[in-house]
Every structure is written in C-alpha cells, then in structure tokens.
C-alpha cells in the first residue's frame, strides 16, 4: 500500500489518512466496470441496511429503520447540502438549519392550511429554501468569509425566533398533523411504518449525491474551487465570483429544504425547537470531521455523528459510569473533536487531495489569520503539501 512511508508517524490520524490514500489510488485508476461494481455494492448495501440482523447490533434499543431515517439519513442529506457550501465553495454557513426549517415549514404549512399534495409541498419547500438562500446570500456574499459566518448564524436564529413568534405557523406550539407523503397506488403506501420513508430518503440521497458529483466536475465546480483557493485571483481570471457563490448558497439551501420537507412528512409534527443552532453546528462538525469537499468523507462523517450518540445511548456500563445518558455528551464531544481536528488534521478523516493540499498551503478558505509570522519555532508541514 502506498502509505507505508508515513507509518512511523506518531499522529494516529495521519495513519488513517495513509490507509485511505491507498484506497483512493485504487479508485483513481479503477476501470469503469470496477467503479460501477462499487456503486452497485453501495446501493445494495443501502437497500439491505435496515435488515434486523444489522439493526440488533447497530441500534439495539430503538427501531433501527427509524434511526436510519432520523438522524442518520437526514444528517447525511444535510451534510451533503452543507458540503456544497462549505466544502466546495469554501463559504462557512453557520445557519444551515434555517433552510432545513424552510423546507419543513413549507411542507407543514401548505399541507395543513391549503391541503396541497405532499409532493407539491415538497417542491415548494425546496423552492422556498432556495429563495431564502438567495435573499440571505445576495446582500451578504460580498462580505468577507468570517462575516458571512456570523450573518448566517444570525439568519438561522432569525428564522427560528420568527417561527416561534408567528402564530400563523403555529408559534411555539409548532404545526401538528402534517400530511404524510401521498401514496403511489400499487407501489408504495406511506403510513406509520418507517420502511417507505427509508427508501424515499435513500433515493433522495442518491439523487443529491449524483447531482453534487456532476456539479463538482462541471465548470461550476471548478469555479467554486477557484473561489475557495483564491477569490481575488478567480475574479481576475474572469470568474463571476459573486454569482457562483450565490449559486452555491442556493443549491446548498435547496438540499437543506429537501431534507426539511422529507423530515416534516415523516415526523408529522414540527416546532421551532426542531431547528436549533446546535443542529447547524452538528452538521458542520459532520462535514468537517469527514473531510469537507469529499463526498464519501462527508457521508461517513454524518453517519458517525448521527449514529454514535444513538449507539452509546445503549451501552449500559457507560451509562452506569457517567450516571446519565451517554448521548448527552455528544455535543461536548463534537466540540472537542472540532478543535482537535483543526489542530491535527484540518482536512478531515477522508479529505479530497486537493482540499488537503490547500489547507496545508494556507489557502482554501478566507485567507490566513493575522499575526502569524513564520519564526524559527514555526512548524511548517511540507510533507503534506502534495
């Protein structure tokens, strides 16, 4: 395997990376049929994943299929959406949950007040999320990246508080009796059983992944990479940076809205507290942990962050040791992981090569910090530059 050269390294995270590099080399040189075999394997894996045999280990305490839908599937969908904004365009969005809320509230509101068909409300949710993404992005995307982060955070809070204070959409009580997805006669009935929702979310994830990969390989994806690496240079080379940033925002928002619509259709009940800031932070942690910009990494990150707290909830000795539900420690852990990852391996567990190189060169988002002058004690990592 290719990573042998770094096995002596003391940093365990880098050893993980070395293993991954081997797999990636294989993938890059894989033939078309090999790749399709992997795709097929992934789809088959997703289809048999809800099997009870897997569930008894993965989630002994609660219904595995339900856990697969929320949090796991929903987090993956959100993470893929946030990855467009953070990983591909290099914009830090701390209010991503706002778009999730837009989708959820659109489905709930148009479904209950006007009795629209679920699929129409879902499309409406995606559209509303995209519009709100543009409304938020248009005035703020000209700002420096770190300002953008705070403005999006404020926007997320504005949406939540507004939902909380507006009685037309249920106020603090939220909206109940959100209609389930409309049945497709003879094919699928959406009732209380979780399985149809699981397959629905799998379809959504697959579509969004294909969409995202195609985008990344297109002119748009290259423009995003250029913006991420050096916005001024991109602008000088004729990339309309503002337009592309707005596009990234809108596409990320659409995926968030889609996730919100799916969630509302299954959960039947949404309230403002379904959409707290901490969810934005959790999804960000998933994207960063997995490796912003690299879809397999992002999906892995979302899976781990969604699944681990659910799993640890069932570990009895841990429960006895801590004296409370171990899942309560998840945010503490996410916070610590974010700090550690940024210090040791800012590119995440499964980074894209390009992103990794960028982060070690000090490009790759918002420029460098002030007051960082190379001195004799500066640890300049050169080995990671390639």
């Amino acid at each position, binding site marked *: 395997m290719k990573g042998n050269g770094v096995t002596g390294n003391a940093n365990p995270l880098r050893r993980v990376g070395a293993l991954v590099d081997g797999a990636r080399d294989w993938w890059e040189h894989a033939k078309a049929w090999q790749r399709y075999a992997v795709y097929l394997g992934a789809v088959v894996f997703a289809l048999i994943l809800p099997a009870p045999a897997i569930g008894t280990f993965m989630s002994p305490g609660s219904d595995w299929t339900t856990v697969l839908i929320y949090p796991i599937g929903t987090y993956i969908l959100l993470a893929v959406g946030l990855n467009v904004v953070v990983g591909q365009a*290099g914009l*830090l969005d*701390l209010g991503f949950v706002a778009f999730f809320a837009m989708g959820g509230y659109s489905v709930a509101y148009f479904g209950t007040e006007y009795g629209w068909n679920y699929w129409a409300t879902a499309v409406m949710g995606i559209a509303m999320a995209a519009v709100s993404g543009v409304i938020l992005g248009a*005035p*703020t995307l000209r*700002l420096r*990246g*770190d*300002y953008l*982060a*705070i*403005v999006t*955070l*404020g926007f997320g*809070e*504005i949406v939540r*508080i507004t939902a*909380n*204070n507006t009685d037309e959409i249920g106020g603090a009580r939220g909206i109940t009796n959100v209609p389930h997805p409309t049945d497709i006669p003879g094919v699928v009935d959406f009732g209380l059983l979780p399985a149809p929702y699981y397959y629905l979310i799998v379809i959504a994830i697959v579509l969004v992944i294909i969409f995202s990969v195609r985008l990344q390989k297109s002119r748009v994806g290259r423009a995003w990479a250029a913006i991420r690496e050096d916005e001024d240079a991109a602008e000088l080379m004729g990339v309309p940076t503002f337009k592309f940033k707005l596009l990234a925002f809108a596409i990320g928002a659409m995926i968030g809205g889609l996730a919100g619509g799916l969630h509302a259709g299954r959960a039947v009940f949404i309230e403002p507290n379904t959409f707290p*800031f*901490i969810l934005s*932070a959790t999804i*960000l*942690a998933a994207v*960063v942990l997995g490796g912003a910009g690299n879809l397999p990494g992002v999906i892995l990150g979302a899976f781990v962050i969604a699944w681990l707290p659910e799993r640890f909830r069932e570990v009895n000795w841990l429960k006895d040791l801590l004296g409370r539900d171990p899942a*309560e*420690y998840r*945010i*503490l852990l*996410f*916070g*610590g*992981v*974010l*700090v*550690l*990852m*940024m*210090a040791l391996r*800012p590119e995440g567990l499964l980074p894209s090569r390009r992103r990794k190189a960028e*982060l070690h060169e*000090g*490009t*790759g*988002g*918002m*420029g*460098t*910090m*002030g*007051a*960082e*002058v*190379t*001195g004799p*004690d*500066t*640890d*300049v*990592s050169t080995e990671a530059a390639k």
Partner: protein
Amino acid sequence: MLDDFLNQFLPSTVGGLVFGSIYALVALGYTMVYGVLRLINFAHSEIFMIGTFTSLVVITAIAPASPLTGIALFGVMLLIIVLSAAVSGGAAILLELVAYRPLRRKGATRLTALISAIGASLFLQELFALVIIPWLTGKPGRNQQSSPRLVDRDTVFSIGNADVRTDHIIVVVAAVIMMIALDRLVNRTKIGRGIRATAQDPEAAVLMGVSIDNIVRVTFLLGGAMAGVAGALYLMEFENTVYNVGFVLGIKAFTAAVLGGIGNLRGALLGGIVLGLIENWGAIFLGSEWKDVIAFTVLVVVLMFRPTGILGESLQKARA
C-alpha cells in the same frame, strides 16, 4: 402606537444604555482579537459566561442577607469584578493556548480557525452544563441559576417617567471606567503600542522586537477580562445566568463590534450603546420577543450598507 412609543421611550432608553454597556464590554474582546489576529473569537461568548458563573459563585459565597449599600457594596462589587475578570482572562488565555495557538503555528486558514473557535465554544458550554455547573451549584446544569440580590433597586433620580436605579448607574459607570482604562492602556503603554503595532503589521512588529505570542496572549487576557467584568455586571443586574447565556449575547456583542467598526475600541463602545438603544426602542413597536431578531437584522443591514461600521474599520489608524 406613537403614544406607546412616547410613553416608553425614556424607560427603554435607560434599559438600552444598561444593555448597551454590557454589549460594549463584551464587544471589546471581539474587536481586540479581531484587530490582532483577524479572527472572530467565537468562543468569546463562553468567556463571558464563565464570568457570570464566577460572580455567581462569589455572590453565593458571600450570601448577603439583604442587599448591600455604601462601602460594603463597593468592596463586594470590586471583589466580584476583579475575580471575574481574573478567571475570565485566565480562561481566555487558556482558550488561545489550546484552540488557536497550534493553528497559528501552522499558518492555518481563517476558516480552520473559525471552526476551531466554534468547537471550543460548544465544548465550553457543554462542559459547564454537564460538569462544572452541577459541581458548583449542585443543581442541574441546564437550568437557570439565580443569584441573591446584591444591590437594591432604589430609584436614584427620574427623568420624565424613567426611573434611573442604583444598579443601572453601577453598570454604566463601571463599564465606562473599564473602557477608559482599556483605552488608556492600549494608547499609552508600551504593551499597548505592541498591540497596535501587531494589528497594523505583524511582520514589521516582529522586526521591531515585538513578541507576537506575548501580544496575542495579552490581547486575549484583556478581552477576556473585559468579558469577565461584563459577566459580573450582567449577573448583578439580571440576577440569573445559564450555561448558554453567552450565545445570543455574544452574537449581539459581535454585532456591536461590527456596528462600531471592528478593530476599533471606541467603536465597540459606540456600537454597543447604539445596538442596545435600537433593540430596546424597536421592542416598543414589535414587542420584546422580537428583540433578538431586531439585533440580528441590524447586523445584516450594517454589513450590507456599511461593513466598515460607524467609526470605520481602520483599526490601526483609529488607534494609532
């Protein structure tokens, strides 16, 4: 509507000044760190939270049977302020050491640093909610913790229908004193010159013999101490705190810093007061449940039309 506004205008102004003073003190920390490191210290709100809890512990330990007056009040206030400032300042230095220094060494991007800051913020909040608050108070960590009353709510004088109380005066006067002291420190002392030099041009500052690490540490210490003072005043005024008390207040203080012109110390004062007033006046029309929305909208609007803030962003020039 207009009658309401006129009726409530003066009381709201007093409330706005009190809030604004606290925003301003917290904003100083954001502004100083941003000036030196070009980094939004997202975990600064937790430094403020630590200040409120330090004060809570001290007030509970002293446990005045009745609110204090005169020299006793002065002494206790001073003690609380000094201790909170010390603990918060220490926490800020520790934060810099753990969350930012390793990144600075590697020349990390600002995106990386900001994510680290968010991680540190979540970590500190949860650490307090799960471990430290139950240990300090013996109550569940996610509950509101209330403190005994330290200062009587006596009306000292009235302007129109607005009563100005002792506690209002203490908050505003203490905040102004701290800000003048900080302004003097940054503009008159050698260490202050180092801070200004680093903000202007870190490389040239190093060549002139400024120790960047020292300056960064002092910047975090000063910003943290100001947040600690703000925490003490907040607890004295509102008499309760909670593990995530810093979250919304932190965003608002950051808004204040941007509003006044980030990196600009006097701008932070102005921004804090202006934000406090806008928020309170706006709440007369819309109701106080919209206060936070008003503040965040101000942030978006300011960034749209004048991203450099009221006093301008040229921190180096404004301070030099």
